[in-house]
C-alpha cells in the first residue's frame, strides 16, 4: 500500500519530516517532467529569447541599439503600417462575415453533418491553407484565373490597375478566405452559449426579437466578438506562407521583411535586423493576445 500512498501523495508533502526513500520517490516524480522541460527550453524558450535579443547586438556580438532604431526607419515603419492595415481590414471583414455564418448556424445540431463538415472545412482553411490557398486564388483571380477570364469575356479587366494580386492588396482576398473560417471556429462557442432562459425572460417581459438582440445578445457577445477580432488580427499579422507564395520578392509586410533580412547574404548584420523586426512583431502579438485573453476571460464567466 505504500506505493499507493506515493502515487496519490499531494504535492505539499515535501518537507523535513520525510524519510529518505520518500524523498527519492518525490524527486523521481519531478524527474518525469524533465524531458518536456528540456524540450521546451531548447526549442521554444531559447529560440524565442534568441529571436528577441539578437536585435540588440551587432554581428560581432557587441551591444547596439542601431537595429532597434532601424525599426523606426521610414521604410520599416511603412512595412509595419501595411501589416497593420492588411490585418485590420481582413480581421474586420472576417469577423463580420464569420459572425454572420455563426448566426446562420444557430439552431442547427452541433453534431449534425452540416456542422461537422463546416467545422472541418473551417479548420483546414483557417490553419493549414497557406501556400495552397495562394494557388487557389491564382487559379481564380490570377492572370489566367477562372474569374479573370470570365470577366475579361464580358469586358471587365481585373488587372487594369496592374498585377495587384501579387502585391499587398492581393493579400486581402486570400487572408479573408482564412479569416472567416477562423472566426467561425472561435466565435461559434460564444453564440452557442447564449441561454434560452434569457430569450424566455425577454419574451416574458414583453420584449421582441429586436430587444433580445440589442439589449441581451449583442451586449453579452461583445467581449467575445472583440476578442475574436483581436485573434484574427494576430493571425493575419503573423501569417507568412500565403504572402511568401504570392509576393516572391520585396518586403511589403513585416513577415516578408524578416524573410529578406534572413535570406540576404550580401548585407552583413541583417540577421540582427531580423531580430529587431521579430522583437517588434512579438511586442504587437503580446499586446493583442493579452487583450484577447482578457476578453476571453470575461466571456467564459457566463459561458459555463
Amino acid at each position, binding site marked *: 500500500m505504500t506505493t499507493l500512498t506515493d*502515487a*496519490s501523495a499531494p*504535492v505539499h508533502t515535501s518537507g523535513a519530516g520525510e524519510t529518505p526513500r520518500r524523498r527519492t520517490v518525490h524527486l523521481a*516524480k519531478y524527474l*518525469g*517532467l524533465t*524531458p*518536456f522541460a528540456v524540450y521546451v527550453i*531548447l*526549442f*521554444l524558450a*531559447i*529560440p*524565442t529569447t534568441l*529571436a*528577441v535579443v*539578437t536585435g540588440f547586438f551587432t554581428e560581432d556580438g557587441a551591444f547596439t541599439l542601431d537595429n532597434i532604431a532601424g525599426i523606426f526607419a521610414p521604410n520599416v515603419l511603412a512595412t509595419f503600417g501595411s501589416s497593420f492595415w492588411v490585418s485590420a481590414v481582413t480581421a474586420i471583414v472576417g469577423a463580420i*462575415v464569420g459572425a*454572420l*455564418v455563426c*448566426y*446562420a448556424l*444557430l*439552431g*442547427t445540431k452541433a453534431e449534425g453533418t452540416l456542422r461537422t463538415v463546416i*467545422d*472541418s472545412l473551417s*479548420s*483546414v*482553411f483557417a490553419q*493549414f*491553407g*497557406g501556400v495552397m490557398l495562394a*494557388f*487557389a486564388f*491564382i*487559379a*481564380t483571380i490570377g492572370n*489566367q484565373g*477562372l*474569374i479573370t477570364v470570365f470577366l475579361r469575356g464580358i469586358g471587365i479587366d481585373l488587372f487594369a490597375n496592374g498585377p495587384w494580386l501579387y502585391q499587398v492588396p492581393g493579400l486581402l482576398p486570400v487572408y479573408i*478566405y482564412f479569416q*472567416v473560417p477562423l472566426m467561425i471556429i472561435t466565435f461559434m462557442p460564444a453564440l452557442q452559449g447564449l441561454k*434560452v432562459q434569457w430569450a424566455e425572460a*425577454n419574451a416574458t417581459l414583453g420584449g421582441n*426579437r429586436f430587444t*433580445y*438582440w440589442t439589449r441581451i445578445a449583442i451586449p453579452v457577445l461583445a467581449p467575445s466578438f472583440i476578442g475574436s477580432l483581436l485573434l484574427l488580427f494576430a493571425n493575419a499579422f503573423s*501569417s*507568412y*506562407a500565403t504572402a511568401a*507564395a504570392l509576393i516572391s520578392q520585396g518586403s511589403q509586410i513585416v513577415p516578408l521583411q*524578416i*524573410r529578406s533580412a*534572413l535570406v540576404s547574404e550580401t548585407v552583413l548584420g541583417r540577421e540582427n535586423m531580423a531580430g529587431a*523586426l*521579430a522583437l517588434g*512583431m512579438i511586442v504587437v*502579438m*503580446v499586446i493583442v493576445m493579452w487583450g484577447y485573453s482578457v476578453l476571453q476571460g470575461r466571456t467564459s464567466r457566463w459561458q459555463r
Partner: protein
Amino acid sequence: MKLGTEPSAVTRWIILGVVGIIFAIPIVALIQFSFRDGLGGGYTLDHWTGLFGEGAARTYRGLFQAVGNSVLLAVVTVAIVLVVLLPTMILVHIQFPKLKRVLEFICIVPITVPAIVLVVGLAPVYSVVVKIFGSGVWTLAFAYGITVLPYAYRAIQANLEAVPVVTLSEAARSLGANWATVLWRVLLPILRRGVLAAAFISVAVVLGEFTIASLLNRVNLQTALLQVGQSDPWVAAIFALLALTFAFVLLLLIGRLARNRNNS
C-alpha cells in the same frame, strides 16, 4: 422556439448559400485549373494521369521526395507528441495539479510566438542541431513539435478532463499494476480519442507547414509545391488539392471522434 433567437430557415440558407458559393469558387477554380490544357484553353486529363503514368517517378522525383519528407516529419512530430507531451500531461494531471496552469500557458505560447518569429531564433539553434544529429530533414520535427503544441494540448486535455484519470490509475495501482501497465493498459485506452485527435491534427499541421522549412532551407511538401508551381503549376494544383482533401478527411475524423465521445 419562437423566441427570436434563431434565424429563420430562409435567412439561414441565404447566408450559408451566399458565403458557401463565394468560398467554393477558389476551390472550383483550382480543380478546373488542374484540368487545363496549357494556356490555350481546352481541357485535358494529362496532368492527373501523368502523375501515375510511366516515368512519373522520375519527372516528379523532387515532389515525391518532398511528400516523403513531410510524411517522415509528420511521423516524428507525432512521436514527439506521444513520447514527450502526452506523458507529461498525464503526470501533471495526476501528480502535479498545481502545475496545470503553467503547462497550459507553455502550450499556448506558440500562438503568441508565431513561426516567422520563432524561425529567427531557430536558425542559430539548428546550427547546433545539425552538428549533433546531422542535417537530416527529420530534425525539423523538433521545431514542429513546438508548432503543434497548442493543438495537441487542447485535444488531449479535453479528453483528460472528461474521464476520471486519477481514480482509474489509483484503482489499477491498488490492484498491483506498475506505472508502465497503468499507462499502457488503463490510461492509453481511455485517452485513445484525445490522443488520436492530437495525432491527426499534428499530421495536418505538419503537412501544411511552410514558414520554418522554407526559411531554414529544408524541403517539405509546401516548399516543394511553391517551387514546382513555377515550372508545372498544374501538378502543384493537383498536389494542393490532394493535400487539402487529406487534411479535410483528417479533421472530419477528429470531429467524428469527438462526437463518439459525447455519445458514449
